[in-house]
C-alpha cells in the first residue's frame, strides 16, 4: 500500500486514536507519531485533523486530558483513555474485524 494513498475510512481515526492511547498517555503530537509507529509507517494522519478527533473523543467521555510537562520541558496537553474509552475500543475493534472480514469475503467472491 502506498503511504501517500493510505487514506483513512470515516470513523477509523477515532479507533486509531483510542488504540494509540490504550498503550499509554500521550500529547496530540505523540498520538500522531504512535499511530504512524504502530502501523509500521503505513498510516500517516493529516496532522490538523487529529485535534478535532481528539476533542470529539474527549467530548464523548472516551478520553480525558490534563496539562503537564513534555519530554522537552514544554507545557503540553496529555490525553489518556477512560474506562468508557477502553470499552469503546473493544467495540470498535470488533466492528472493524467484522467489516474487514465481510469486505474480504466480498472481494474474493467469484
Amino acid at each position, binding site marked *: 500500500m502506498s503511504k501517500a494513498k493510505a487514506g483513512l475510512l470515516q470513523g477509523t481515526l477515532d479507533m486509531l486514536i483510542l488504540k494509540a492511547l490504550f498503550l499509554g498517555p500521550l500529547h496530540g503530537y505523540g498520538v500522531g507519531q504512535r499511530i504512524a509507529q504502530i502501523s509500521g509507517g503505513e498510516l500517516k494522519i493529516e496532522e*490538523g485533523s487529529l485535534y*478535532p478527533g481528539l476533542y470529539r473523543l474527549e467530548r464523548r467521555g472516551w478520553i480525558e486530558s490534563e496539562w503537564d510537562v513534555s519530554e522537552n520541558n514544554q507545557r503540553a*496537553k496529555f490525553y489518556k483513555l477512560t474506562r468508557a474509552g477502553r470499552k469503546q475500543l473493544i467495540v470498535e475493534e470488533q466492528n472493524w474485524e467484522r467489516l474487514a472480514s465481510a469486505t474480504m469475503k466480498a472481494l474474493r467472491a467469484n
Partner: protein
Amino acid sequence: MSRVKPTVDFIHAWRNPDDIADEVEAELRFHVQMRTNSNIEQGMTPEEARLAATQSFGDFDQVKVSCCEIKRGFPFDLKPLRMGVYIAIACLAGGISLWAVNVPHHNLFSVLWQLIAIAVLMRSFLIGRKRNNPHID
C-alpha cells in the same frame, strides 16, 4: 461518571470562550513546534523546518475554530431530549383538549380553545414523527 468532566468542560467553554481559544491555540502551537524540532533534527534549516511544519499541519485557524466549536458543543445526544420536549408539548396539548372538551360549548371562545389544542397536538405529533424518521414526507 465519564459524562461529568465533559459537562464541566462544556460549562467552562461557554463561560470562558477566550480561555478555551487560548488553550486550543497553545496545544496546536506545541504540535507545530514539535514538528519543527523534528524537521531540524532531520537536517532542515530552522526556517525550512518551520515552513514544512506549518504546511504539514494544514489550516491552523480552521483547526482551531473546529476544536473550539467541539468544546462548546452540547456533551449529550440531543435526540432523546428533543423527543422529550415533543412528548411534553403533546401531553400539554392533550390535557388542554380534554379540558376544552369538558367545557360546555356555549360560546365561540371554548370551541376555539378546543380547535387550537387539537391543532397543537397534531402538529407536535407530526413534527416528532418526522424528526425521528426523516424519510417520512
